């Protein structure tokens, strides 16, 4: 039996960083305001005190340099873990990420073991520039791994796995889960594979989700009979656990694919296309998607609620599909 502690999703991340840094002195952190201040979300709180200024580095406001210098440090044999203050600002370092980090191994044979921590997602009034879900951009950029945990245990385990991975990993941590979600987290150097996880078993319909949407899906699933709705938590988007998706859909024959990201070309589009090709003959209903409309996420609560997928809207879509 592994020992566990109850932690928030955010505490699990801090714990994961600390464990990885204790285990391997090549691991260091860099980002804006992450030092003595502990970061905009306090994810690095206490680490500056424990590990000192070289291993917990405050940087200028310079996302391209944060990503690019991480690539350089990784090539030199270190294990950088960079924080982008909000995932939205990754667009300022986009080129370094997709062109330098992502393509390095294929082009040169050199590995780039780095992690980019991306506090992402909405649902708390962040507005258009503090709520983005950029993961599909990275999925469409060969050479980047992309993971998006939904629970504290996965947040810690997948973060440590990402740090151990010899490739650049985009680690999407959902800001709206930081303090909202608590759970048992294994102590020590806990790792989690980049595979999907059945969050709730069911026989009649599969909801595919990741990140915050897993909780939205679970809330909806609770409104049906136990054992009716299966919720598949993708956890990893690249690699995508195609077998887990197809297995679940073959079992249930009905599927709803959820995205918090804007609908067009989102992760869910890829999942739906996969199912439409490889599980076609097992389907009893159309492959339905529910996603955030193609709109910048608005600030006011009434507007934001209207745009994001909610348990109510998921429930409605599930009902429709079950009745198909």
């Amino acid at each position, binding site marked *: 039996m592994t020992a566990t502690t109850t932690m928030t999703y955010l505490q699990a991340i801090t714990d994961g960083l600390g464990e990885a840094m204790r285990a391997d002195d090549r691991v260091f952190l860099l980002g804006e305001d992450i030092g003595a201040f502990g970061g905009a979300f306090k994810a690095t709180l206490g680490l500056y005190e424990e590990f000192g200024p070289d291993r917990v580095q405050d940087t200028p406001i310079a996302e391209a340099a944060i990503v690019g210098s991480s690539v350089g440090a990784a090539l030199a044999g270190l294990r950088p873990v960079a924080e982008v203050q909000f995932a939205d600002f990754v667009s*300022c370092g986009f080129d370094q990420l997709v062109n330098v980090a992502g393509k390095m191994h294929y082009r040169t044979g050199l590995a780039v073991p780095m992690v980019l921590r991306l506090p992402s997602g909405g649902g708390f009034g962040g507005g258009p520039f503090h709520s983005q879900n950029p993961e599909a951009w990275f999925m469409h950029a060969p050479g980047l791994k992309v993971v998006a945990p939904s629970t504290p245990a996965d947040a810690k385990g997948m973060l440590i796995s990402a740090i151990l991975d010899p490739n650049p990993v985009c680690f999407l941590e959902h800001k709206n889960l930081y303090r909202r979600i608590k759970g048992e987290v294994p102590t020590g150097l806990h790792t989690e594979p980049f595979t999907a996880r059945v969050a709730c078993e069911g026989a009649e319909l599969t909801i595919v989700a990741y990140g915050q949407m897993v909780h939205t899906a679970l809330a909806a699933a609770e409104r049906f009979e136990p054992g009716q709705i299966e919720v598949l938590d993708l956890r990893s988007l690249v690699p995508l656990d195609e077998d887990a998706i197809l297995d679940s859909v073959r079992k249930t024959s009905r599927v709803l694919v959820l995205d918090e990201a804007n609908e067009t070309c989102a992760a869910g589009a890829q999942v739906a296309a996969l199912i439409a090709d490889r599980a076609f003959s097992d389907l009893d209903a159309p492959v339905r998607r529910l996603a955030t409309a193609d709109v*910048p996420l608005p600030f006011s609560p009434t507007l934001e609620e209207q745009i994001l997928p909610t348990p109510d809207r998921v429930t409605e879509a599930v009902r429709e599909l079950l009745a198909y």
Partner: protein
Amino acid sequence: MAPVSSPAQPLPADARGSRRQIDRNSDLLPRGSSEPRPSEPAVLTPADRTTLYRFLVLMRTIEERGVTLYKQGQLPGSFYDGRGQEAISVGAAFALGPDDVISSPLIRDLGAHLVRGTDITEIFRQYLGRQNTLNQGREGNMHFGDHQKGVIAPVSMLPDMMVVALGLAMAFRMRGEQRVALSFFGEGATSPGAWHEAMNWAGLRREPVIYVCENNQLAYSTPSSRQFAVRPSERAKGYGVASELVDGNDVEAVHAAVHTARERALNGGGATLIEAETMRMNGHGSHDDASYVDPELRAYWEARDPLDRYAQVVAELGVDLDAIRTTVKAEVDAAAETALATPLPDPATAATGVFCEGEPVELGPGDAPWSRFAGRAGGPVQAGEANDQGGLRTEEATR
């Protein structure tokens, strides 16, 4: 700073053919330069000074009210203010003409919106996330701009709006218009690459653009000593951009610097960067207790409060400062009350307007309350009667 060695072996001038022979830059020389216009000094009348003071008080009063609303839990998200920096956005915007464009005021720059004549009830509505005409509730605190007043809303990505200002200035130059674009940003915003691209291009092309850098010692928790080794006004020299370092807590110094920069731009002299030194007196946002700030440093700047300093100047004109404060407070109270009674936006509007379906709307002229602009291109603007909507009638204050 690291030592800078002098050029080891400067080459003879004729080795640099690119400057001599294939230079086509003259193509792009600003139109303005062909018809030089007389420069005017930054003279402020007593009414101007009273107006300036009133804007400072208005900004402080609105933001204090905002902090209170935040503490009362009335505001979605955090609250961002410019306490201690009021002289910069007020002084800078006051030096602009009606057709100039601000792209953009950032979170410390409420004063710029006020000087341009933005309705203060709408400002409270956007703070509160209520239905409003400035951003329809779509954007967070301070992410708005009244384009009917020649103000463009900022994006969060720093300092992207500098580049947009460059494009505006380019258009003004190409059309031979006597207009400038002005962009505000913090000293932390000088580190991203966009700053460099804007500065390089502005210096090279001599665009009529004014960059106002508010060096308020901090970028969130990060002191400027961890942001750069050479201060922005020095660095500007590497771009062919004129620069000036001013006391950002002196509203008239800021005003004069922007006025000079504007004259330079309109005379074909190109871009200017003004570094206004100041201090952020509150947290990064109201959620931040700023406990990382040295109390002595805070005390130094507290003693140089821009409102207190300017109050002395205006009091000497015989103006009743208390009357100004009282009138402003009443206005602000009324605006906040109206805003609090305004509903949240209609959810049915949430997904509309991602694309423009009809004709693009044009940028409108802003208020230009400085007496210099009275009766000019901006129309019927009179000194001291600048702002009909914000209730900024200075005659009330001056009696």
